């Protein structure tokens, strides 16, 4: 490293963060730990939020499998239905449901942090925004159930 002046630099296992070439004094850099995501509550929440997104991915795979089975004809479709009714599958789906609900809840909370709705000089409180999101979600779920009941 080309450092001007009477430089003292750290041993090479420490990577200088930036502007290192210009720094004319000794300094110390701590490496970030690999387990940073366990350290604070907010970090753990973040990790949980990201981890539960994998369950959402898993569910879309199951949906894709369903479509694939449907396209392959009645036999494949029946096989898929039988797989769905196995106790293992039911447990898996229950776990996925819980994880996705958690994931959705975290995003409702985050959305309320991002979304600012102003009425004049007043900002709509975050709790009300979350409430609105939950209401829309319940409404849509109700609609889906209604359609399901209608076509059954």
């Amino acid at each position, binding site marked *: 490293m080309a450092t001007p002046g009477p430089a003292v630099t750290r041993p090479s296992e420490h990577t200088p963060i930036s502007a290192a070439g210009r720094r004319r004094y000794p300094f*110390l850099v701590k490496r*970030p730990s690999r387990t940073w995501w366990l350290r604070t509550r907010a970090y753990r929440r*973040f990790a949980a939020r990201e981890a539960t997104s994998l369950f959402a991915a898993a569910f879309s795979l199951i949906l894709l499998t369903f479509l694939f089975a449907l396209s392959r004809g009645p036999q494949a479709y029946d096989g898929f239905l039988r797989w769905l009714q196995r106790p293992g599958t039911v447990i898996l789906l229950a776990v996925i449901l819980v994880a996705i609900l958690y994931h959705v809840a975290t995003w409702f909370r985050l959305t309320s942090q*991002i979304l600012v709705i102003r009425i004049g000089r007043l900002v709509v409180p975050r709790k009300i925004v979350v409430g609105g999101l939950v209401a829309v979600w319940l409404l849509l779920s109700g609609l889906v159930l209604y359609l399901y009941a209608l076509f059954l």
Partner: protein
Amino acid sequence: MAEETMTLRVTRYRPERGPDSYLDEFDVPYREDMVVLDALNHIKDDIDGSLTYRWSCRMGVCGSCGMMVNGMPRLTCSTYLREFHPEPVVIEPLESFPVIRDLVVDMTDFLEKLREVKPWVIREREDAVEEGEYLQTPEEVDRYKQFSMCINCMLCYSACPVYAQDPEFLGPAAIALASRYNLDSRDQGRSERDEVLGVDTGIWDCTFVGECSVVCPKDVDPAAAIQRTKVSTTTRGMLAAVWPHRGRR
């Protein structure tokens, strides 16, 4: 009655003594109304004058006394010892910054990033002085006021795991500062700031951990500034694609 004391474990780094940091333990007299900074000042005045740290205002305004207190980035002038008493407190330099000495970190990277976002009102064409001030309604001030409260304490950078892994990341306070000007009705410099904001090392590096907003002593909510910038940049990009004239603004 014997005087109550409290133990401070303070990280020391004195390059002339060796390449690594070490812990020093100090016992300081404890009073309920003492803040961490008072304890450090006591150490410096009465125990070890070589202890090095930054501070100035002692009232949460100057933003220079930020350190890790028991692993969390805090303003030491606004953090009471009673929060931890009688357990010992661990004081370390702000994380993710190069340490120059004891508790003093190098702010160069942060200051350069602040400058990169061009934190001033940019006009396509300056009005002549005779034309008067650029007026603003209280509603227009509301739009950016929160993001103008930053005291540059760098706590948000220390709390940010993305900045810890990737020092190129523009970071919370700089993006909040960019938003402060982008949302200012007098400003027309959005597209200039986009050059550092709308790139991988700008807003898109952020994974919305949200800890920056948790530790911010001024409720600036830099995490919200970043996510809102993501939304507005994307909408403007899409608008520009379907409606070239509108989207340019």
